[in-house]
């Protein structure tokens, strides 16, 4: 799509020799052993790897939930490693949108209230602005007609859309999706991928962490991890359209 202009774009993420060690009993586990890459604005990147490859640790690092043992991580130009807990919480609130495998919506709570949540922790927003932004986000993910549905009245696909709307509401620098289609059937997964491609087309930066190699066909770049190292980092010159894939799927009768 727009990877031809990548070099002109702003750098959103820069990892420099990131290592992350965990002390497990007597042993030291090296989850990341020196990861370096940069992601520019507008990229749609898959980070792939089997379990134990370090992708969860990398996701936690990218999401400012965890800090690296060594190396430096710049998020939108801001060095994260030496930041305190509270500063990182604020940074997450302003710069990152999370989409989780299990949606993590608040139970018995309406779509709007769920989407408003990140703005509740940002005192710059008034109640009216919050609501307005939440409705805009829900419309952007195609849920304009389900604003007041409660989370327990929605299907998995709808819940994931609400979660994506929640990730969009703070206009983040990067959207981090963690196995975002992992709990969904093929059809709904494709629908969610269509939505992600649409957001990508609108110029948003998306990082999609998954163990499913199929996803990489729909993204602009693919980073593969193994044993805590990047073993492959390629740009995808032939991005498949998720919408076309969806059209080919047999129609559900129900």
């Amino acid at each position, binding site marked *: 799509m727009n990877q031809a202009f990548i070099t002109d774009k702003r750098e959103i993420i820069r990892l420099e020799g990131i290592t992350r060690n965990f002390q497990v009993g007597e042993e030291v586990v090296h989850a990341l052993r020196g990861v370096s890459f940069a992601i520019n604005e507008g990229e749609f990147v898959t980070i792939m790897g089997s379990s134990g490859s370090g992708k969860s640790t990398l996701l936690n690092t990218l999401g400012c939930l965890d800090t690296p043992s060594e190396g430096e991580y710049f998020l939108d130009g801001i060095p994260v490693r030496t930041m305190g807990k509270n500063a990182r919480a604020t940074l*997450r609130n302003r710069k990152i949108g999370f989409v*989780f495998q299990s949606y993590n919506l*608040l139970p018995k709570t309406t779509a709007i209230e769920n989407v408003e*949540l990140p703005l*509740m*922790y940002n*005192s710059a927003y008034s109640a009216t602005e919050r609501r307005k932004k939440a409705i805009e986000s829900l419309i952007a993910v195609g849920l304009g007609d389900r604003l007041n549905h409660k989370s327990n009245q929605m299907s998995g696909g709808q819940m994931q859309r609400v979660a994506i709307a929640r990730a969009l509401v703070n206009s983040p620098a990067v959207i981090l999706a963690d196995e975002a289609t992992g709990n969904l059937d093929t059809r709904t997964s494709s629908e969610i991928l269509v939505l992600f491609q649409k957001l990508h087309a609108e110029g948003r930066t998306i990082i999609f962490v998954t163990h499913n190699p199929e996803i990489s066909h729909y993204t602009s770049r693919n980073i593969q991890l193994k044993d805590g190292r990047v073993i492959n980092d390629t740009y995808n010159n032939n991005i498949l359209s998720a919408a076309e894939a969806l059209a080919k799927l047999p129609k559900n009768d129900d």
Partner: protein
Amino acid sequence: MNGTNLIKIALRALANNKLRGFLTMLGIIIGVASVITMLAIGQGSKKSIQEQISEMGSNMIMIQPGADIRGGVRQDASAMETLKLQDYKDIVNETRYLAAISPSVNSSGQIIYSSNNAPTTVYGISSEYLEIRRYKIEEGDMFSEQDIQSAAKVCVVGKTVIDNLFKNGENPIGKVIRFNKIPFRIIGTLESKGYNSMGMDQDDLILAPYTTIQKRVLAITHLQGLTCSATKEEYTDLAIDEISEILRRNHKLKQTDDDDFTIRSQQELSSMLTSTTDLMTVLLAAVAGISLLVGGIGIMNIMYVSVTERTREIGLRMSIGAKGRDILAQFLIESVLISVTGGLIGVLLGIGASLLVNGIARFPIYIQPWSVFLSFAVCTLTGIFFGWYPAKKAAQLDPIEAIRYE
């Protein structure tokens, strides 16, 4: 994150679990309601005893000379002749906390009128005595300052004395009665006060100017006692200190000398008599307090379960930007809301139950504002105290683990 948002979040969480919230609240409701009811009952019986005591006089303070030891033998209480008229005058001039002061000298003996006689006590006092002991003149007049100056042989008599001496319903005013061969003209009668709480007949007495009793009956120059009333009940102790200071100075007592007088107050009597009800109140309140404590533990229990149950929610909130202190505040506000709402309902229920006890069992109750305020404050503190640990636990969760908690 501002406070309004936190309260909104906490309210939403509570609304999601109404039944559980109410059941948790129930512990606090019962605790607060029982504290208030028990205190109301305890304070009610205390107050009714105090009212009986205050019938005897208002904020009374009694000063008596001390007991002397002569040749190793302790004499009768108030045997010393240390209280002088000068003491009385100095106290009158210097006092700041006394509303009324009367000297007192008394003599017991037979009182005679025509063919009738009866044993009674004649109190030599000043006119302020009426105010102190809450006596009222029914007919006639109290003797005047001039009667005191001239040691006039006049007196005011109580109901029992009249009944004993004037059997055929004569008007006692103007009649002359004799006490110790000295004739006293009756110039007034006292309103009946009946028996006091210790079974003493408060109408069996004769009041006469203290000068008359001193000079004409007892032939003494000292006083047997002083009876005073403090301006306010809370000033009783200050008044006692003040009197004691004046007397010690007048009697030229050294720092190390014991007092040569004793001061007793009605307050002491009242606190002696109310000590039983105080004990009862403390016991009742302690039992009620324990139920409040159990209610508090109920809050802690539920908040603890709630934190575990909502680990994923906490993880999510943290990953989208909630700081530890936001989570702490959210759970604290939840537990305080539970305890404060429970406290409010408990206060209303407690007041209702107290009124019911009063209405049905005719038991005296008295709801003191401080007991309402206290139990309300205690249950707010309970909410904070018992909510703190679970809230702290929530705030310390690691978002990475919490978000994937199954």
